């Protein structure tokens, strides 16, 4: 049956985008602070604390600085450096908020693309009734990816500290030997060349897999050539994907902390990507079913999606914990600083995310019967999505805004903007083609699938 995006949904998505854009704009205006603004802000903050003595010292510094009196040497320099550091963090915040939200929604589409390729490569019999839903969601990969790269391009050193001027030039005050050693890989040209190759490869697979899937619908009953082509390109794509996804996670996320590295980071990002993607497949499916569409999708399909949500949540926890435990155990300063920042300054999002991404799905989705209750899957899905937004938040924010983080207008507006765009593009794309991939040779098996 055909689906057309309803006017209500379209208008809702556009309102989300406008609200988000306004909020993002406000975030940038609000962060446009000068050195003096930050100095006053810090003074006020120390006024609020009970240590009034510190405040007076700070005030004295402020006064001396305003008069241009630098006579008390290193103390003033230290103060200046601190204010400048905070100034950078405040400037970085709206960029980071935009980047985190942009990556989060892009990662959902990319996770669905990988899951879709696995279904084709495995010649899965249960899932063909969901293929059109997956194809609709993956249509976000190209526009979402381009937008994310534009954010990265303009955010520059606001998100990627290794792009700071002089960081790789010997003799510069910003010189950093470790980053300079990595500059053969970590440089802006290389970053965008790789990013464009990745995005081109992923979008090409997205384009051709959908093309073959649609062509199979109209092909002769004995002509399975499009199905076979889809099988081949899916297998090839998965090989390309697992390399590029890993490298993407180093480039786009791990490099915000250029001194730190983790060898399982690619897997870790992948697991979060897959669990979000499958959650969104389940949500879109339940939404379309509530409209009386997707009549071939039954509770057993939802049950299987919920099983994957459960399984990949555990997998995510396994990788999160593996990364954490090894670094905690060995306690090497250059590695452990990553978690010390997060535990000191990000306690609530850091541990809250583990509860939302592990304990909630573990306890809520353990019971087999609950996995068949649609509204239950949606509620758990919302918790999982919020938890994985926090996961991305925890990957980026400690490196860019430090303890100046908050989930306020810039963050929420960025989420609203990208959510609106995601809903608009995905549901428009869902409305373009029939919702049943009727040419797929396994579609009969999928329609009769029961647990």
């Amino acid at each position, binding site marked *: 049956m055909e689906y057309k995006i309803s006017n209500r949904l379209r208008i809702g998505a556009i309102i989300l985008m406008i609200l988000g854009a306004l909020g993002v704009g406000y975030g940038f205006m609000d962060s446009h602070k000068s050195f003096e603004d930050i100095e006053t802000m810090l003074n006020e903050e120390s006024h609020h604390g009970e240590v009034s003595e510190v405040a007076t010292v700070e005030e004295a510094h402020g006064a001396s600085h305003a008069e241009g009196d630098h006579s008390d040497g290193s103390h003033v320099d230290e103060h200046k450096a601190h204010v400048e550091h905070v100034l950078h963090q405040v400037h970085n915040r709206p960029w980071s908020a935009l980047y985190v939200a942009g990556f989060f929604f892009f990662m959902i589409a990319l996770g669905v693309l990988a899951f879709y390729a696995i279904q084709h490569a495995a010649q899965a019999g249960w899932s063909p009734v969901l293929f059109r839903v997956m194809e609709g969601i993956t249509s976000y990969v190209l526009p979402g990816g381009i937008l994310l790269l534009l954010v990265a391009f303009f955010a520059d050193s606001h998100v990627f500290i290794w792009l700071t001027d002089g960081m790789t030039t010997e003799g510069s005050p910003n010189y950093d030997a470790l980053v300079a050693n990595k500059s053969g890989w970590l440089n802006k040209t290389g970053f965008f060349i790789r990013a464009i190759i990745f995005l081109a490869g992923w979008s090409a697979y997205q384009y051709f897999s959908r093309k073959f899937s649609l062509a199979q619908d109209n092909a002769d009953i004995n002509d399975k050539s499009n199905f076979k082509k889809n099988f081949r390109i899916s297998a090839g794509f998965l090989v390309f994907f697992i390399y590029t996804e890993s490298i993407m996670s180093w480039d786009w996320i791990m490099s915000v902390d250029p001194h730190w590295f983790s060898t399982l980071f690619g897997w870790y990002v992948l697991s979060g990507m897959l669990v979000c993607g499958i959650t969104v497949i389940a949500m879109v499916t339940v939404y379309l079913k509530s409209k009386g569409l997707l009549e071939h999708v039954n509770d057993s399909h939802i049950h299987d999606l919920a099983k994957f949500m459960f399984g990949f949540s555990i997998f995510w926890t396994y990788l999160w914990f593996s990364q954490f*435990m090894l670094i*905690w*155990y060995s306690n090497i300063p250059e590695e452990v600083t990553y978690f010390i920042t997060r535990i000191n300054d990000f306690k609530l999002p850091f541990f809250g995310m583990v509860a939302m991404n592990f304990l909630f799905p573990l306890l809520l989705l353990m019971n087999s019967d609950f996995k068949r209750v649609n509204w239950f899957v949606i509620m758990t899905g919302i918790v999982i999505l919020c938890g994985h937004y926090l996961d991305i938040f925890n990957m980026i924010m400690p490196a860019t805004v430090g303890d100046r983080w908050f989930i306020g207008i810039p963050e929420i507006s960025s989420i609203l903007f990208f959510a609106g765009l995601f809903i608009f593009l995905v549901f428009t794309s869902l409305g373009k083609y029939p919702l049943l991939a009727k040419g797929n040779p396994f579609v009969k098996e999928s329609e009769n699938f029961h647990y």
Partner: protein
Amino acid sequence: MEASKVIHAIYTDDDVLMSAVKTVKAEKHHIEEVYTPFPVHGLDKAMGLAPTRLAITAFIYGCIGISVAFAMMNFIMIKDWPQDIGGKPSFSYLENMPAFVPIMFELTVFFAAHLMVITFYLRSRMWPFKDAENPDPRTTDDHFLMEIAVHNNEESLTNLLKSTGAVEINIIDKDEDAH
């Protein structure tokens, strides 16, 4: 009183067996037991058996496992012989917990898996040196056997079972078997 006479209908295909079970249930006969060489998907539902409670026991065993791991590690590593773990001599269970998580996980799985298997065997009344209850050795190879109690309705039952595709129908007197 238990029925002393039972009828054994033998089938050679699991699909035929499934539709036979459905027909017999629709005719309101009580199926005592079905013996199959391999698990037949959906047979329990077709026979109207109550859902298994094995999953609940598995959850309970898992909880016992994690508690045992907690108590054991707390005694060994914190109380009895306090250990300096990874250069962090905090001697507190909570602060050293990342090091104990793998053990907590493993013992949870160990307890849940082993005790669940043992529970399954006991619940199925299987233990070492027990004689097989299986009435016909062919059900361990490629035949399926349905056992139905007979209450003076041999003829109608036989006809019904024949119509469902049974390849062989035997009437067994259980009392004589027992002697």
